[in-house]
């Protein structure tokens, strides 16, 4: 090779322009509807907030949700008067619907963090139109979740004892308990999520301030916009802060539900003590969260005519995430059986038998239908691109994830090693009223959010327009 002069070019040369034979179905679906400009995006989203006339449907929805809040207030009051004996928990099931609902809500929050932080770092631009919405959902879900452990302590006025602080009683929390780690994980999660959401809102609050006609509305948005003028320096600081918060949020997606899974897995009860609980819980949380985002986004998109912003591509991608995380959850269900049989352990074996044929067998079967079967529809494009089917599957998953926690928590606790200490668990009226009440709280907050704040990030949507991308193309690579 060295003796003859090498005339071939180092790299294979191919014609620059190649013929693209692309059938129509391979053409990309846009992340934003056609015919939009900077102005139309701003108009469309900010009008939802700033218009004079509030649609009657919003009032009806809020009224129903506020009914739930009323029920919640009554339930909490009665709980404070009587104590947690009004719930169905007793020996041997000390954790019932209070903990099921806590895990259910906190899991739902995870989609918001995943969408806003991880998908941002992975440069997935389809996150843009759903992130604000999903982050708000995270906050409200964490608020609903936080109620349960706080009230479960029985004397919520002493809840501050959960935090380690030097005190004259010489009293410290048990640092070796995962319940203690939960306090840190969940409070960090709530703080960072709130910050992330608020920082992302600032430029849009300034837009609303500038567009508001009523002086009081202007002042209100102005106060929260923190003097944002949109100067280059503001944007630079903003971009830094947002990226840092995304980096901070990323481990939280894993840590919170990992520690929630430790609450169970450190114990020795069959059905709780499984080493794969951490990744299984995290996947389940994301699964539940995306189902809730779909549950909320599909009606909201229709009601506020946001089809151009939350396009079919968004819904389809969420369907795919639902499928992927659903498969991880099914892997866990299946592996539970394999290891139960492989272990040769009588208690593990009985736990599985009890799930499948015991008093809660119906819930276990329903769990498989909701989380195991229903999401398999997402393999097919036909179902992934139908809002009806997406909504149906999401509802199945919402129910399925609640059932999953029911199967894990009371169905494992009610029959442990000694048959003499077996018992049954049923939620009482007050268990259910708390649950329905917390759903009411969640939706009330959500209704207020869509009325008073832009539910889609205005400035981020503008960056999706072709004219915005022409400039940003260079720096992106």
């Amino acid at each position, binding site marked *: 090779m060295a003796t003859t002069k090498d005339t071939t070019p180092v790299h294979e040369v191919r014609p620059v322009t190649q013929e693209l034979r692309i059938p129509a179905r*391979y053409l990309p679906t846009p992340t934003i509807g056609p015919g939009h400009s900077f102005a139309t995006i701003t108009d469309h989203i900010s009008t939802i907030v700033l218009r004079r006339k509030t649609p009657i449907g919003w009032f009806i929805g809020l009224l129903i949700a506020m009914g739930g809040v009323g029920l919640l207030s009554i339930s909490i009051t009665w709980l404070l008067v009587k104590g947690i004996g009004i719930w169905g928990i007793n020996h041997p099931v000390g954790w019932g619907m209070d903990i099921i609902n806590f895990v259910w809500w906190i899991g739902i929050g995870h989609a918001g963090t995943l969408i806003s932080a991880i998908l941002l770092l992975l440069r997935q631009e389809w996150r843009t139109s759903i992130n604000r919405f999903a982050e708000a959902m995270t906050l409200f879900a964490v608020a609903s979740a936080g109620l349960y452990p706080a009230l479960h302590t029985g004397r919520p006025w002493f809840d501050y004892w959960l935090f380690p602080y030097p005190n004259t009683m010489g009293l410290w929390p048990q640092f070796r308990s995962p319940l203690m780690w939960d306090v840190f994980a969940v409070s960090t999660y709530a703080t960072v999520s709130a910050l992330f959401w608020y920082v992302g809102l600032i430029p849009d609050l300034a837009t609303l301030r500038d567009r508001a006609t009523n002086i009081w509305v202007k002042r209100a948005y102005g106060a929260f916009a923190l003097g944002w003028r949109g100067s280059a320096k503001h944007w630079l600081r903003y971009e830094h802060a947002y990226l840092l918060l995304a980096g901070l949020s990323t481990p939280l997606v894993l840590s919170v539900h990992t520690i929630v899974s430790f609450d169970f897995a*450190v114990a020795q009860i069959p059905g709780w003590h499984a080493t794969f609980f951490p990744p299984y819980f995290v996947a389940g949380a994301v699964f539940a969260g995306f189902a809730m985002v779909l549950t909320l986004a599909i009606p909201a998109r229709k009601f506020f005519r946001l089809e151009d912003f939350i396009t079919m591509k968004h819904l389809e991608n969420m369907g795919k995430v639902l499928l992927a995380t659903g498969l991880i959850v099914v892997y866990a269900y299946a592996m539970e059986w394999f290891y139960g049989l492989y272990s040769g352990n009588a208690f593990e074996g009985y736990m599985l038998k009890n799930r499948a044929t015991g008093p809660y067998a119906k819930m276990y079967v329903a769990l498989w239908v909701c989380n195991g079967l229903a999401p398999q529809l997402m393999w097919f494009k036909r179902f992934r691109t139908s809002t009806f089917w997406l909504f149906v599957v999401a509802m199945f998953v919402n129910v399925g994830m609640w059932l999953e926690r029911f199967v894990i928590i009371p169905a494992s606790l009610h029959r442990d090693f000694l048959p003499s200490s077996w018992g049954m668990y049923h939620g009482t009226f007050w268990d259910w009223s708390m649950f329905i009440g917390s759903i009411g709280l969640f939706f009330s907050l959500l209704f207020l959010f869509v009325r008073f704040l832009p539910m889609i990030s205005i400035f981020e949507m503008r960056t999706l327009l072709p004219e915005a991308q022409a400039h940003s193309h260079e720096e992106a690579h």
Partner: protein
Amino acid sequence: MTTTQATGIVRAQVPALIVGILGFIAAIIGWVMNPAEFYRAYLPSYLFWFEIVAGSLAILMLQYVTGGEWGVLIRRPLGAAARTMIVMAVLFIPIAIGLPHIYVWANPEIVANDHLLHLKQPYLNPTFFLLRAAIYFAIWILWAWRIRVLSLRFYEDRAPETEISRRKWSAAGLLMIVLTLTFASIDWVMSLEPKWYSSMFGISFTIGCALSAFAYVTFLLTQLSKTKAMSGILKPSHLRDLGNLMLAFVMLWAYTAFSQFLLIWYGNLKEEVPYYLKRQHGTWGVMAAALVIFHFFLPFFLLLMRTIKDRPNTIAIVTVCILAMRYIEIYWLVGPAHYPESFYFSWMSIAVLIGIAGIWFWFFVQQLKGQTIIPIHETWVEEAIREGRLSTNA
């Protein structure tokens, strides 16, 4: 041309084969001297190379499903490594022959006197074990071959349909490989301690495979970076992407390994905790500490730094550290099952490690030969997808 020949990797092929054969000759001498020790030494060294091959298949499919730019330069080596699965199937034969020496449950007289092992016999018995291994290899070879065929077809027709078909095979393949690797790890590694079980094991092993493969191809890329074929192609950003992915897998490995340890330590059950007690005293304990430091902390902090990720010479050191630690971890998982009392390391492990290395590398280069080292013909599609002229989720 950006052919493999121009990278000079072919020059290493014959020397590698010679070294490999010498390694195997040494191993055979060891087998004559002490068959039991040979078989026990064979398993960890085999698993080290197996992880790279299986991981390559997994990452190749991940690349075809997600289609990120990070994978363009490593596709050819990944594909070549994945196709050497046939060689790994052949190299599995000594394990099949030496079953009773390696696995307690393969000895009928021990099983007959042990209630729990007797209970587990329907799953842990030599016939079913070998049948399962045959099924795993058949599936892995099928997928490696299928993706190869679709890639070659794509080279000819350059039709998006072919690309989509390859993507679908890869998506199904990811599901397949997680399941098969879970069971392969249970069979080949976890059943060494037949009374112990941990549901995290399969997940941890699968992540280990992916990490091994990432480290191997990244190392290969850094060695090729200065050759004629690659000059001007490999940019710091490519290495940074690979570095970030390795960082992610280092963290995932630590997450699964630590969670498993914490939960077993905390539960402190007599069925589970001896596994770690055995592995934390004496030299085994030193290895455990080394894993914490060199399998997690050191690569973690190094891979956070751009100055290290961007340069071939520095990232190469990190990949070597990761690969060495992969071997340490495998040996730490396997060894104490055979030598629970105190640390033992046979020279035959080294002989087998080198033997498989040489022979495997020869086949690897054989697969890599005769094609461009980077998938030139595919880049225009990548470009089209990136610029939004082509949909990726049809």
